[in-house]
């Protein structure tokens, strides 16, 4: 009886563990490293392009911040961004395009509410191909306010780790982009 009860509990534990991730979240299948490096190269080129033009609008209402659309010299949208500031956090989300396709999104957050007396910096990157999530990685650094000057060094030291992206990720990113597009005419 005891053994049966223990077995049942262990089985339930294992099932709950698997079900809690497997149902709504799934890890992106491992992409070819060339796909990721190709995307990194394209994103780097966009970031380095000095001819890019920014069109922006301030957020009004509940969210405070700014949304922007960046176009290259041929008028093509290459980046869409959203910066939101609250009393305890700042978050910059950037979405990169190659032609008509979303290829990459990055989210950088500075948060003073997650850990008392400390600042948590979180960097998240998503890679997309054929409207699917190729890879989702994330890294975090926690610093005392006095150490914030060391952020770059600490961030560079920290390694990105794959994390199980939500199955809604692609759709949610598209929804943000849609909102930004609606705000900037």
């Amino acid at each position: 009886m005891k053994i049966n009860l223990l077995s049942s509990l262990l089985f339930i534990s294992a099932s709950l563990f698997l079900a809690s991730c497997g149902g709504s979240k799934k890890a992106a299948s491992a992409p070819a490293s060339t796909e990721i490096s190709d995307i990194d190269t394209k994103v780097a080129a966009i970031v380095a392009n000095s001819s890019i033009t920014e069109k922006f609008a301030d957020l009004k209402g509940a969210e405070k911040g700014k949304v922007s659309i960046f176009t290259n010299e041929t008028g093509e949208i290459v980046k869409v961004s959203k910066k939101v500031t609250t009393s305890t956090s700042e978050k910059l989300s950037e979405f990169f395009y190659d032609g008509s396709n979303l290829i990459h999104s990055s989210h950088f957050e500075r948060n003073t509410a997650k850990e008392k007396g400390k600042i948590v910096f979180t960097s998240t990157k998503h890679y997309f191909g054929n409207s699917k999530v190729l890879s989702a990685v994330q890294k975090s650094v926690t610093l005392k306010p006095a150490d914030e000057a060391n952020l770059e060094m600490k961030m560079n030291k920290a390694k990105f780790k794959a994390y199980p992206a939500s199955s809604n990720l692609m759709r949610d990113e598209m929804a943000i982009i849609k909102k930004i597009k609606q705000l900037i005419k």
Partner: protein
Amino acid sequence: MKKLLYFLSFISLSLFTNSCTDDPVDPVVGDNAPVLIFTLNPGTGFIDGDKTVEAGSTIKLKLDGTDSDKDLTSLHIESKNGSDTATHVPSSVILVNGAPANGNPISIPSADGENLRYSIEFPTADVADTITYTFSLEDSKGYTDFVSFTIITTGTKAFELTGKKLSNASGPAGMGGIDLHTGNEVGSSDPTAELVDLGVINPVSDGTWKQQFKAATVETIIRKPLAGFDYSAVFNADAIKSAYDAGTNISNPNIVGNKDDVYLIKSGIFYWAVKITKVVVTPPLGMGGDNLDYFELSIKR
């Protein structure tokens, strides 16, 4: 034993609550709802918002739809004129990715159930109007997302007559002229003719068709369009009038017609764009011919 059970229960609960990290992106839509968005950088000729166009022109747009449940089922295309009730655009005029729509609502195949990119085109109103179009993407649970935009049309759609004839005026009676209003062949002295053919070189000595025509009366004026005028791209009556106004007069009233020549013609309050689509030459009368030579015309008004 009780302690062991409590311990195992605690472990179960801990694993359940801590096994996944929070989503890094704030969710902005319900868990099951689809998202529909204008494709970014859709390419030349695609609209992604409100637009003013000539009546009768075709509008093209590209849409991206995504749904994590992979159960997108239909796309509705509705039009609304002022306070009228929204109605579905007839599926017969809609192209999806270049092919006729399978209906409206468009039924989405399961292969597109998670992500779709549809290029859609359909004609705008035939007359000046303001119409709001709404595209609604729906999944099997009835969740929807939509995009909408307003199209203002100007002018009036041009209508076209094709395969009309202006025949050799030296041919049988009742030929040699054309009524541009109807496209009907008429006699070269018929009062309804706007254009008349000039017949053969010499009915007695040379039965060769001149392949020339002219305005039937002084009320009809024929002009050449400016370089770059594209007959096939004209679908609005106002555009024909504008092209006529910008066109150049023809000094010789007797015009030699050749295939693909385009003329802009005014008679009274009416304006036409006329294209010679074919020149059919038959042997002269008396040499096995019949004087049934003709220009084949396409006419837009």
